[in-house]
């Protein structure tokens, strides 16, 4: 058996209540690794022939939960959530830090494929070499923190009953959805550990469409064998030493970035990206640390980076709100992008969104979009039922509930920014697409391209197969493939030490994969397959490479304020770099994979459909 893997996957059909154990050939594991890569491959094998007809929120879609060979063994355990995305209609690999993948692997499984739709709310319980479907009616509708509390107690009690004499049972680990996922909000996330989310892609809605409230795991086995255990141990120690030496990240996490990206690089979204600059000193690690962090060093399994911190509001109107830092993305999206510059309000909105189970980037992006429409009097008090002013945390709280409960205009906004923009343009007879900040349906992460000083530049989102995802951006072709590796080996990007990761992969799997080989072959294969799925799209929207492989119009407007006032993304550069990017990967000028590329990547089966897309 391949090293680093348990060798078994669960294939669960919720309609038929059927649970099978399956294996995946070693050649497939070698080519695609796990996580994002394997999800893309399995989705193509099973749904490729009917791709454009598969409704992401219908029973045919496959919801995948996959680990990778490095998961839990390498510092920073993560789980990769995927399926056909209700936002992009392609496939997105979305990952979250959690103990869940550790428990899953210790239960004896590398991953889970879920199809069908349960007749009533259910949750999956995975224990040693066993899976079962259990009733979840009593937790349907519950917020994140209540779901954790109830399931932790219930499952622990059940496992203690089954094996009372082995000593104290620990709590299980779980992935779950909040009301946002249950109500199939397209920006719903798969949640874990109260504030961790697999946000991009809208897979919380996919879980909701299957009536699947949670997946809970508790395994008592060991992690799988590795190819060279002594070498692994030595390398593990070395990686930890390097992580521990990175002091700034350990102290602040990404929490300091609310100042540095806002005031310094001028690339933080402010009021739905109308600006990308602010100089509010509150939005930095200092105030969060001193007033709100109750746990200044918090980590997930096998992580000494501890970039996570826990915030808690202990007084005032938002008393009792608990969330993580919030990290930079939520500082921006639940803060500055809504015109909120007060850490307390920022933590409140973040905690609320986490609890509801919305993606903290994608959901609030739509909220910012709505607020700009209100500013422009396109949406009115009648549409919302209240006034929606920038910076007013109270009304944004109301708006979040409107979306999650699909009430009034919330029902339209629940479809995500792009689909909401289509609908509102039609409703109001005004083109509101210039205010929708997305690429191919995926709301853009909080790193602007206009100042050209952040890591995300020109084609970062426009050419990416994951749309607006800021964790896997397009650059010059091959360099972006390292992100694909981290999503497929399923490790945390913040725990990866670049010069050690490839050797670590080798000592775990025994496969001789160098960075060059991964980028030129494995990564390119995964991204090419993802590109094909994105281009096929459907059933509700389809992407036109000539029109949609582009930034939102706002990214071409000059920055109105700040030290880089006047700067903007150069459209000519985008066009040129996009072509270079496509050509590097062996795609034609419009980004359709060429025949010879498909042949060289063992993707010949794609040729039939790609041929139709070429001119």
């Amino acid at each position, binding site marked *: 058996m391949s090293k680093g893997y348990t060798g078994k996957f669960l294939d669960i059909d919720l309609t038929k209540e059927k649970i099978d154990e399956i294996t995946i050939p070693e050649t497939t594991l070698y080519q695609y690794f796990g996580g994002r890569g394997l999800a893309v491959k399995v989705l193509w094998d099973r749904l490729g022939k009917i791709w454009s007809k598969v409704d992401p929120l219908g029973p045919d879609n496959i919801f995948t939960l996959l680990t990778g060979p490095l998961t*839990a*063994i390498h510092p920073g355990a993560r789980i990769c959530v995927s399926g056909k995305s209700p936002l992009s209609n392609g496939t997105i690999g979305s990952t979250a830090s959690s*103990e869940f993948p*550790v428990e899953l692997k*210790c239960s004896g499984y590398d991953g889970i494929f879920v199809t069908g739709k349960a007749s009533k709310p259910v949750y999956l319980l995975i224990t*040693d070499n066993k899976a079962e479907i259990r009733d979840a009616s009593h937790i349907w509708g519950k917020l994140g*923190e209540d779901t*954790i*509390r109830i399931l*932790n*107690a219930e499952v622990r009690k059940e496992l203690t009953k089954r094996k009372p*004499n*082995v*000593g*104290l049972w*620990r*709590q299980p680990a779980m992935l779950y959805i909040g009301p946002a996922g249950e109500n199939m909000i397209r920006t719903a996330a798969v949640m874990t*550990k*109260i*504030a961790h989310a697999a946000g991009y892609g809208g897979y919380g809605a996919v879980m909701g469409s299957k009536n699947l409230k949670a997946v809970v795991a508790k*395994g*008592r*086995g*060991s*992690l799988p*064998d590795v190819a060279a*255990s002594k070498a692994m*141990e030595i390398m*593990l120690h070395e990686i*930890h*030493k390097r992580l*521990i030496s990175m002091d700034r990240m350990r102290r602040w996490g990404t929490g300091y970035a609310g100042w540095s990206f806002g005031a310094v690089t001028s690339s933080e979204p402010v009021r739905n990206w109308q600006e990308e600059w602010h100089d509010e000193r509150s939005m930095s690690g200092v105030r969060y640390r001193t007033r709100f962090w*109750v*746990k200044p*060093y*918090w*980590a*997930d*399994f*096998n*992580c*000494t980076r*501890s970039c996570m911190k*826990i915030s*808690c509001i*202990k007084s005032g109107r938002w*008393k*009792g709100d*608990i969330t993580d830092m919030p990290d930079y993305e939520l500082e921006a999206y639940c803060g500055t992008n809504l015109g909120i510059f007060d850490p307390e309000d920022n933590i409140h909105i973040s905690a609320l969104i986490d609890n509801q189970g919305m993606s903290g980037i994608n959901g609030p992006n739509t909220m910012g979009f709505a607020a700009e429409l209100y500013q422009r009097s396109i949406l009115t008090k009648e549409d919302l039922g209240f006034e929606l002013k920038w910076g007013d945390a109270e009304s944004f709280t109301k708006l979040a509930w409107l979306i999650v409960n699909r009430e009034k205009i919330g029902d339209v906004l629940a479809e995500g920014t792009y689909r909401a923009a289509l609908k509102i343009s039609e409703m109001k007879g005004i083109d509101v697409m210039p205010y929708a900040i997305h690429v191919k349906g995926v709301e853009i992460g909080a790193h602007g391209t206009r100042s050209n000083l952040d890591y995300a530049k020109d084609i970062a989102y426009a050419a990416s197969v994951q749309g607006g995802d800021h964790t896997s951006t397009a650059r010059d072709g091959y360099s972006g493939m390292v992100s694909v590796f981290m999503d497929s080996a399923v490790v945390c990007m913040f725990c990866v030490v670049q010069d050690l990761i490839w050797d670590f992969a080798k000592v775990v799997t025994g496969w001789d994969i160098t960075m060059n080989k991964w980028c030129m072959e494995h990564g390119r294969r995964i991204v090419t397959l993802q590109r094909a799925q994105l281009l096929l799209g459907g059933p509700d929207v389809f992407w036109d490479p000539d029109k949609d492989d582009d930034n939102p119009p706002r990214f071409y407007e000059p920055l109105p304020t700040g030290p880089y006032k006047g700067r903007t993304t150069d459209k000519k550069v985008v066009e040129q770099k996009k072509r270079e990017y496509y050509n590097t990967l062996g795609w034609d000028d419009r980004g359709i994979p060429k025949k010879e590329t498909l042949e060289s990547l063992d993707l010949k089966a794609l040729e039939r459909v790609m041929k139709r897309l070429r001119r």
Partner: protein
Amino acid sequence: MFVLSIYLKFSLLKFELVSYVLSNNWIVRDYIRCTGCRRCEIACSLRHEGCIWPEASRIRIFMPFPGLEVPHLCAQCDDYPCVKSCAVEALSIDSQTGAVIVEQDKCTSCGLCIKKCPGTVPFLHPETNKAIICDLCGGEPECVKVCAEAMYNALRYVKENVGVQKKLHSIDPYIIAKDLAVNLFGEKGERVI
């Protein structure tokens, strides 16, 4: 004066004698400092099992709610209720460290040591089904090393005399977590477990 000095000397001698015989080395834990990285479990299982095996680690971090991380391991009680409870003499006390040593061959998996432990610390190995208790790695505990390396210092290895209430640290981790919840989250903490 003479009598007093003799007495002092004597008591000093006695004290040293007692402390030599009855002092325990133990691992002090600071729940608030634990980050939940569980590298201690990885280090422990790598040493004792030769692989990463969280549920076979002698130290286990209980996390009943995110943020509440409770290291749970033997506190080296002065009176060793687990050793006393064992009907087949599978448990003994290490003469150097004072740690409880489990003799695998003798253990009958009866679970008496688990029941008698005030903190329900011992548990049965997921595969061999034999009792598992921290052996302090012969005096150089791996869990403490990795915790110190990361500068968390949630675990520290100390040598202390009898009567330092070590036993009070042998307590149900869920009780500790409930207190910890209020410490961290205030009133809200009353409702998270």
